C-alpha cells in the first residue's frame, strides 16, 4: 500500500498527458466529424468523394502508423510537429473519420418525412437541422459515440511509441525501475475508473434524450 501511495504522484503526471490527448481529441474530432458527415451527405459530388476518400484512408490505416507519419515523416517535407502536437493531429484525423461515419449513419436514419414536414411548415435548412433533425440524431448516435469515446481512453496509450510520458509509459518505466508489477494494476484501475465515469455520463445523456421513446 505504501508503494502505491509512493507511485501515485508520478502516475498522475502520466494521466495528465493521457487526459489532455483525450479531451483535445474529442474537442476537435467531434465537430470535425460532424462537418464531414454533412459533406458526406452533400449534393456536391467532389465534396462527397473527398470525404469518402478521407474516411477510407483514415480508417484503413493503423492509428500507430498515422502517429509515426505525423511525427517522423512530416519533418521530411519541412513540417515539424512536437510529439504532443503530432499525437493530437493524428488522433483528431483518425477519430474524426470514425465520428463522421457515426454521424452520417445517424442523420441517414431520420425518415424523409421529418424533412418534408419541416419544409411544409416553412422551416429553413438550418432550423430543420437544429430543431428537428439533430435532436433525434443525438439519441441515435449516443451509443456508438460512447463506444468510440471509451476506445479513445485506451488508444491514448499508443502515444507510447512517440516516447511521450503518458500513463502507459510512466507505468512501464516504474515497473522497470522498481522491478515491481503493482503499477500495472494501478494503471488498469485508472483506465477502468475513466471508463466507468464515461459510461455513467453517457447513460445520463442517453436518458435525457430518450424521454420521448415509449418504455
Amino acid at each position, binding site marked *: 500500500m505504501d508503494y502505491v501511495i509512493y507511485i501515485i504522484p508520478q502516475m498522475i503526471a502520466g494521466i495528465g498527458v493521457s487526459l489532455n490527448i483525450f479531451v483535445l481529441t474529442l474537442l476537435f474530432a467531434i465537430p470535425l466529424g460532424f462537418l464531414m458527415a454533412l459533406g458526406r451527405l452533400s449534393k456536391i459530388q467532389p465534396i462527397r468523394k473527398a470525404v469518402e476518400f478521407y474516411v477510407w484512408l483514415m480508417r484503413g490505416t493503423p492509428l500507430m502508423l498515422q502517429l509515426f507519419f505525423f511525427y517522423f515523416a512530416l519533418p521530411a517535407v519541412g513540417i515539424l510537429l512536437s510529439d504532443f502536437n503530432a499525437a493530437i493531429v493524428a488522433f483528431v484525423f483518425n477519430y474524426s473519420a470514425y465520428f463522421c461515419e457515426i454521424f452520417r449513419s445517424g442523420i441517414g436514419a431520420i425518415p424523409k418525412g421529418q424533412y*418534408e414536414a419541416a419544409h*411544409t*411548415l416553412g*422551416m429553413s435548412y438550418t432550423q430543420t437541422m437544429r430543431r*428537428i433533425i439533430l435532436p433525434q440524431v443525438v439519441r441515435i448516435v449516443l451509443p456508438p459515440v460512447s463506444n468510440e469515446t471509451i476506445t479513445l481512453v485506451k488508444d491514448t496509450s499508443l502515444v507510447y511509441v512517440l516516447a511521450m510520458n503518458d500513463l502507459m509509459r510512466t507505468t512501464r518505466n516504474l515497473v522497470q525501475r522498481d522491478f515491481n508489477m503493482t503499477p500495472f494494476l494501478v494503471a488498469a484501475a485508472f483506465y477502468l475508473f475513466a471508463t466507468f465515469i464515461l459510461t455513467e455520463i453517457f447513460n445520463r445523456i442517453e436518458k435525457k434524450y430518450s424521454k*420521448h421513446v415509449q418504455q
Partner: protein
Amino acid sequence: MADVKVKIRNLKKSYGNLEVIKGIDLDICEGEVIALVGPSGCGKSTFLRCINKLEDVTGGSIVIEGMTLCEEKNGKVHYAPEQEVRKIVSHTGMVFQQFNLFPHMTVLENLIEAPIQVQKRNPQECIVEARELLKKVGLADKENAYPSQLSGGQQQRVAIARGLAMNPGVMLFDEPTSALDPELTVEVLKIMQELAAEKMTMVVVTHEMGFARDVASKVIFIDEGIIKEQGDPHEVFGNPKSERLRQFLKVLLK
C-alpha cells in the same frame, strides 16, 4: 366568384423521361373542398406535393394567395427565391399519410414549433391558440404526451392541428387515412368534415369515396397524369362519363 386561393396552370412533372403529370389546370377557391381521386400511380399525390414544392415541377405555374411560387418562361420553370418559397409554402398546411410528427417533441411543442420559429410569433399567444386547436381535434388532455404514446388516429389529428396552427390559406391532405384502420379513419374524417363545415379550403387526396361524395364540394378524377373528369361529387360519381372512371368506381364501390 369566390376568391381564388391557389391558381395552377399547365402543371407538368417528369421523372427523367417518365411524365407523371401532363398538364393540369386548377383553381382552388376559398372554402372549396376538393377531393382528388384516381387509381394508384395516376399522379394525384405527386400533383398535391407539387403545390407546396415537396416536388419540383418541370412545367407550368403555381400561384398561392397571389404569390407566385413558380412560373414558366420560355419553356423554363423559375421558382421564387428560397426565402420567398418558404414564406409561400407556409401558407399551405400539409397532412401526410405517415403523420410525420416530430417524435422528440410533445404534442403541444409540435404545434407551436413552426409558429414560434418560422412566423416569430409570441410564444404565449401560440400556446393559447395551440390549446384551442387541440380542443377542436379532441385532444385537449394530450398536450404533454409524446407522439409515440398516441394512437395513429390521435397522431393524425395532432398533425392536422399542427398544420392549422400556421393559419394556412389552404390545407393539403395526402391520403390522411390510408395508414389507419377503419375505426381510426372515422375519427380523422370527422375532424376533416368539421373543418369543411367551417369553410376551410382543403385539397384531399383520398381513397375514401364516402368522404369524397359527402364532404367534398368538387371531385377531380385524375388518370394518366391529366384531369379526366371533374365536378359536383354526386354528378361525377352518379353519372361518370368516361369508361375509365366507371371502371375505377366499380372496383372501389364493390
